[in-house]
């Protein structure tokens, strides 16, 4: 039987097992929407802005093991989506974006709502397609899901002109695709793993540095095994939080620009570094020249060869899926474990524990003004460390990363690479859809939240009982902090003037609003909010305007050059 391009699109999504897609209709996707409403397997979530559709699909993917799907129209639909696509690209999130395009015969004629979608998105997608022939539509969508979810994952966009969605052809969905130019299956080199094992067993001051790749590869169990067997200190990057349990004794905290003193010092001073699914980026190791002042051997495990020796030269690269590599590595390490210099390792831990005593995350707990760190600590206690936490970008993001101890992977959802303000709320929506019944909180600030505040309406429509923790310091806090440290206290345009009354704002969308102004009220307010299981609660915490995030490695400085509180 012949189906239209629109019908084929929906049938493909059904065949991929897609249960939710996030989108916004428009002229070029009208046929697709018409088919969407004729079925109920794929549930469409109507957002209020295309950026939010992509962030929601992103949160959906990050908090599950599935591929997120977004659907937007041509022109402004796509350009609005670009921020979301770039966000997903920077963090390697599996996602398929379907965009409408003007009809093939109108392409290039500056048609209404025409934009060169493939051109605009090219630098921020893993791959993209423009479907010019309806007979290639089904295979193209199959390829999109395949590319998005394999290898180093990433967003893939399929641009479908309106006439293609209207034309008819025979439909059959391929079971698999073969692409001679793309083969994500990597056979791990056992030779390299052996070399790594040898290096690791000879370590006197070992360090395990694990990033978002561990989460993406679902390799948490293997990472835990590795750390527990060897007894090595382990740090996570911002993207890797939850990859190793934060409450475990071997965990030394997050590293990097706002990482703990002990994690950064151990990273700088170790003699053998095992980097797993992490990419030595500027927010992690700071200045690479300073990093290389200390001699160390580096084992780097990553699925993407281009991550190897990009910023830091490594000694033993191992290309492959982290789960596979760690299985092999652990097997080899177990055999020769007694070769490990336990005396040296004990001395190393003594040193690390001395660094820990520095208590780098301390803050004034007796303050009469709400300290944002305290809000996160109470949030952690009240949710028993088991909530899904999304965040926006800035100081609140760093405090959430520092003070919420993530013990499980895929619980910490934030825009690490692109640093997209406005990510938190729509991402939380996606998290809630794929984890119904779970506690989902969005830690945000009064600046970030206003970048996608319109999604409070989406939350109302679908009764999403999110808890929004707004750390309101009336500043773009991180901008203000940099201005204080590096720009002579000149707070150029970082003050958030003319703020709305967030309580009334929440209420006007049909939600519950709360304003909390005293440290003594933090806990009771949080308890009250989380008791409201079926309501979205917007909690506006009025926090200390002058609080800064410590430790801090200033831009261009090295790991051991932290500013401490």
């Amino acid at each position: 039987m012949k189906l239209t391009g629109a019908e084929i699109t929906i049938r493909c999504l059904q065949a991929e097992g897609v249960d939710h897609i996030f989108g916004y209709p428009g002229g070029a996707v009208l046929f697709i929407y018409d088919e969407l409403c004729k079925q109920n397997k794929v549930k469409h979530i109507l957002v209020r802005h295309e950026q939010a559709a992509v962030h929601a699909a992103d949160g959906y993917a990050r908090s599950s093991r599935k591929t997120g799907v977004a659907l937007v129209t041509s022109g402004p639909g796509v350009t609005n989506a670009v921020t979301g696509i770039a966000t997903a690209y920077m963090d390697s999130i599996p996602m398929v974006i379907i965009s409408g395009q003007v009809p093939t015969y109108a392409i290039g004629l500056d048609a209404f709502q025409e934009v060169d979608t493939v051109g605009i998105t090219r630098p921020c997608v893993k791959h993209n397609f423009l479907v010019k022939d309806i007979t290639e539509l089904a295979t193209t969508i199959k390829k999109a899901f395949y590319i998005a979810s394999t290898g180093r994952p990433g967003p893939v966009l399929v641009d479908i002109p309106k006439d293609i969605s209207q034309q008819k052809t025979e439909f059959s969905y391929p079971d698999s695709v073969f692409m001679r130019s793309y083969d994500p299956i990597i056979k791990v080199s056992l030779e390299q793993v052996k070399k790594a094992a040898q290096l690791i067993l000879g370590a006197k001051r070992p360090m395990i540095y694990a990033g978002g790749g561990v989460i993406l590869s679902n390799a948490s169990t293997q990472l835990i095994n590795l750390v527990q067997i060897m007894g090595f200190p382990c740090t996570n990057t911002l993207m890797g939080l939850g990859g190793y349990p934060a409450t475990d004794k071997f965990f030394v905290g997050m590293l990097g620009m706002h990482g703990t003193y002990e994690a950064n010092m151990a990273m700088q001073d170790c003699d053998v570094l095992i980097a797993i699914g992490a990419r030595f980026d500027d927010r992690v190791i700071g200045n690479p020249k300073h990093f290389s002042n200390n001699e160390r051997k580096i084992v780097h495990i990553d699925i993407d060869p281009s991550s190897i020796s990009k910023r830091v030269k490594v000694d033993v690269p191992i290309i492959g899926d982290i789960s596979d590599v760690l299985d092999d590595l652990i097997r080899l390490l177990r055999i020769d474990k007694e070769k490990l210099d336990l005396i040296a390792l004990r001395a190393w831990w003594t040193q690390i524990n001395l660094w820990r005593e520095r208590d780098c995350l301390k803050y004034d707990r007796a303050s009469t003004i709400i300290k944002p760190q305290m809000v996160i600590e109470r949030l952690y206690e009240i949710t028993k460390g088991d909530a899904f936490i999304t965040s926006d970008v800035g100081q609140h993001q760093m405090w959430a990363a520092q003070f919420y101890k993530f013990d499980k992977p895929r619980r910490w959802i934030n825009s690490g690479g692109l640093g997209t303000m406005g990510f938190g709320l729509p991402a939380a929506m996606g998290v809630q859809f794929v984890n119904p019944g779970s506690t989902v909180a969005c830690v945000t600030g009064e600046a970030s939240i206003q970048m996608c505040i319109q999604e409070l309406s989406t939350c109302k429509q679908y009764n999403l009982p999110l808890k929004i923790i707004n750390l309101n310091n009336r500043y773009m806090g991180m901008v203000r902090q940099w201005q204080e440290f590096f720009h002579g206290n000149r707070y150029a345009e970082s003050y958030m003037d003319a703020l709305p009354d967030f309580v009334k704002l929440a209420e006007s969308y049909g939600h519950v609003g709360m304003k909390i102004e005293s440290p003594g009220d933090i806990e009771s307010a949080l308890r009250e909010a989380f008791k409201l299981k079926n309501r979205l609660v917007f909690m506006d915490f009025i926090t200390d305007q002058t609080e800064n995030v410590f430790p801090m490695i200033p831009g261009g400085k090295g790991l051991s050059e932290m500013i401490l509180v």
Partner: protein
Amino acid sequence: MRHIISLLIENEAGGLSRVAGLFSARGYNIESLTVAPTEDSTLSRMTIVTIGSDDVVEQIIKQLNKLIDVIKVLNLSDGDHIEYELMLVKIHVTDKNREVIKHTTDTFSGHIVDTTDISYTIKLTGTTSKLDTFINTIGHSSILETVRTGASGIGRGERTLKV
């Protein structure tokens, strides 16, 4: 360091912009780029001449390999290879310089492919530096225009780049 990179890419719309976009987005340098379909019309072959340190070129090759449409990448500079560039150059001729230009063209194994009373168009192939030398020998003042293809390269002997 100058490197000459050869690659095979699916012969589909947008392939060139993916490669060119990668170079501009990551701040890599392109000295020249040539592209045309191969004997198998589903494949295009590109030759890219770039200048960069070994580290940068290693990254360029990894990043090129990462492009979904790219099938194979080879750094020709890693081994023995042959490279040729084609140049067409139009030269203003007078009674005074006519013979000299003919002679120089012969010396460089070039061919005069078009003539008028006042101009010669010369076809010349060779390495980039040979073509540069020809231009310097003729002298810039008598050159009306030049067009160059950029280098095309191929490995010597058994060294092949094939699917």
